[in-house]
C-alpha cells in the first residue's frame, strides 16, 4: 500500500521526532514506517481501530517495547535531538524523562506517599525527608489529587477509587520531573466524572510536559488534544490539527473511521 502524504504541523518546539519507524514482532510488521513530530506545546492524540499500532508506536517513544523479546525497532526516534535507541542511552533515565501512564491504574501496593516518593528517591531527586515531602505535595497538587488525599497520605494507594488511582499514577509520573508523558488509554477504565477530571488535568499539564495520549474514545481525542494522528494497519494515515481532523479530514480512511463507517 502506498504511504499517503502526511501533514506535519509546524510546532514552536519539537520535543520528539520519529523518522521512518518500523516495529516488528518476530516476522510480523506492526508499524510500517511512521514519521511524526511530537511538539512541546500541544497534546498529541493517537487514534485508530484496535490493532492499528497506535499503542505499539507509543511504546517505542520510551522503549517499552524493549521488554518484549520478539520486538525489533527500526528507524530513528529522538528526544531533544538525541537518538533514544543509541547504545549510550540510559533506558532507566529515558523512562524517567518520558513517563508513562497505563490503561488500568497500577499504583504500587504501598502508601499514597510512597507511590509518589519512590521514583524521586531512586533517581536521587530528593535529599532527605523534607525534600521528599515537598515533591510529594507538588506532584499530588499537579495531579489534582492533593486536596482529596492530604489527610491520608499513608493510606494504601490501592484503596483509592479508580479515578483517584489514575491521578496518583499521573502524579507518580510527574514526580520524577519528566519532559514527556505518554498515556495509553488512561480513561478507559474510568467513569465519566473521573474521565473528565483526567481530561481537565491533561489540559492543566499541557505546556509543562509534552503529552501524547492514545485513546479509543474519539470525543476524548477531540476534547483534549490539539494534534491528532490517525493510525490504520500500522501506518500513520493522517496527522494534523485536531479540529481539522474532526471537521475535514483529508484522507478517506480517516473520514470513514471518525464518522463511524469503518469496517
Amino acid at each position, binding site marked *: 500500500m502506498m504511504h499517503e502524504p502526511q501533514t506535519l504541523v509546524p510546532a514552536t518546539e519539537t520535543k520528539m521526532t520519529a523518522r521512518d519507524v518500523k516495529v516488528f514482532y518476530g516476522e510480523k510488521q506492526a508499524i510500517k514506517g511512521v514519521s511524526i513530530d511530537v511538539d512541546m506545546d500541544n497534546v498529541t492524540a493517537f487514534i485508530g481501530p484496535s490493532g492499528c499500532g497506535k499503542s505499539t508506536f507509543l511504546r517505542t517513544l520510551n522503549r517499552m517495547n524493549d521488554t518484549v523479546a520478539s520486538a525489533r525497532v527500526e528507524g530513528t526516534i529522538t528526544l531533544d535531538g538525541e537518538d533514544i535507541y543509541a547504545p549510550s542511552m540510559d533506558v532507566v533515565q529515558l523512562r524517567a524523562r518520558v513517563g508513562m501512564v497505563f490503561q488500568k491504574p497500577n499504583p504500587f501496593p504501598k502508601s499514597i506517599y510512597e507511590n509518589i516518593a519512590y521514583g524521586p528517591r531512586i533517581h536521587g531527586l530528593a535529599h532527605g525527608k523534607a525534600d521528599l515531602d515537598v515533591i510529594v505535595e507538588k506532584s499530588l497538587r499537579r495531579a489534582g489529587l492533593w486536596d482529596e488525599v492530604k489527610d491520608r497520605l499513608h493510606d494504601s494507594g490501592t484503596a483509592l477509587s479508580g479515578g483517584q488511582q489514575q491521578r496518583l499514577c499521573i502524579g507518580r509520573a510527574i514526580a520524577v520531573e519528566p519532559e514527556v508523558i505518554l498515556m495509553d488509554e488512561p480513561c478507559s477504565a474510568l467513569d465519566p466524572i473521573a474521565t473528565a477530571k483526567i481530561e481537565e488535568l491533561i489540559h492543566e499539564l499541557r505546556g509543562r510536559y509534552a503529552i501524547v495520549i492514545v485513546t479509543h474514545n*474519539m*470525543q476524548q481525542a*477531540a476534547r483534549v488534544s490539539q494534534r491528532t494522528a490517525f493510525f490504520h494497519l500500522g501506518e500513520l494515515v493522517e496527522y494534523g490539527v485536531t479540529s481539522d481532523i*474532526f*471537521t*475535514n*479530514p483529508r484522507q478517506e480512511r*480517516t*473520514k*470513514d473511521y*471518525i*464518522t*463511524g*463507517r*469503518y*469496517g
Partner: protein
Amino acid sequence: MAEHTIKAFDEEIDKLRGLIAEMGGRAEAAIENAMLALQRQDKSLAAEVVADDKRIDAIEAEVEKLVVQIIALRAPMANDLRDVIAALKIVSVVERIGDYAKNIAKRVPSIAANQRTLEPVSLLPSMGQVAGEMVHDALNAFAARDADLALAVIERDTVVDDFYNSVFRTLVTYMVENPKTISECAHLLFIAKNIERIGDHATNVAEMVHYAATGVTPPERERGGSAPQEV
C-alpha cells in the same frame, strides 16, 4: 459513501435529506406558482401558495428537531457534522425563500384589481424562473453533495441581479411617465426585490452545500445587484 456501522444513524441522515428535498421542492413550487398566479392574475392559485407555506414552516421545525437529536445522540464528525450543520442552516434559508414566494403571492390580488398589463410583468416570470432554478439546483447539489453544481448556482446569481436592475429601471420610468401606475409599480418593484432576495438566498444555500461537500468555503465573490444604479 460507505454506510455507518450503526444503521439507525444512516436512517436519520436519510430522513434529514428527505425532509430537505421535500422542503426544497415545495419552495420551488411556491415560487413557480406565485409567478404563475401573477401572470394569470389568478387569486385562488395565489391563495394556495400562501396556505402551502405552512408546510414549509413545519418541515423547518421538524428538521431542527432532528438535527438536535442527531447531534445529541450520534455526535456526528467530519462530513456528517458538516452535513447536519448545513442542513440546519439550509432549512432556515429555504424557509425565508418560502416567505418571499408567499409575499409575492399576497400582492397578486392588489395587482389583479387594476386589470392592466404592464410591460415589466413580462420580465418577471423569466426572472422568477431563474431564481426558482437556482433554488432547485442548490438543493439538488445538497442531495448529490455536488460542489461544482453549487458553484454554478453561485455564478448564476448575477443573472438575477441583472434582471432586477433592468426591472427597477423600467418600473421607475413607468412611474415617472404615468403616476397613475405608481401603486401597481410599487407592488411589482417589491416582487422583483423578493425574487432578487430568493436568488441571494439560493446562493447562500449553495455556499453551505459547497462547504458541506468539500469542507472549504467557496471563494468570496463580488456581491452585486441589491442597490441598482441611478436611472
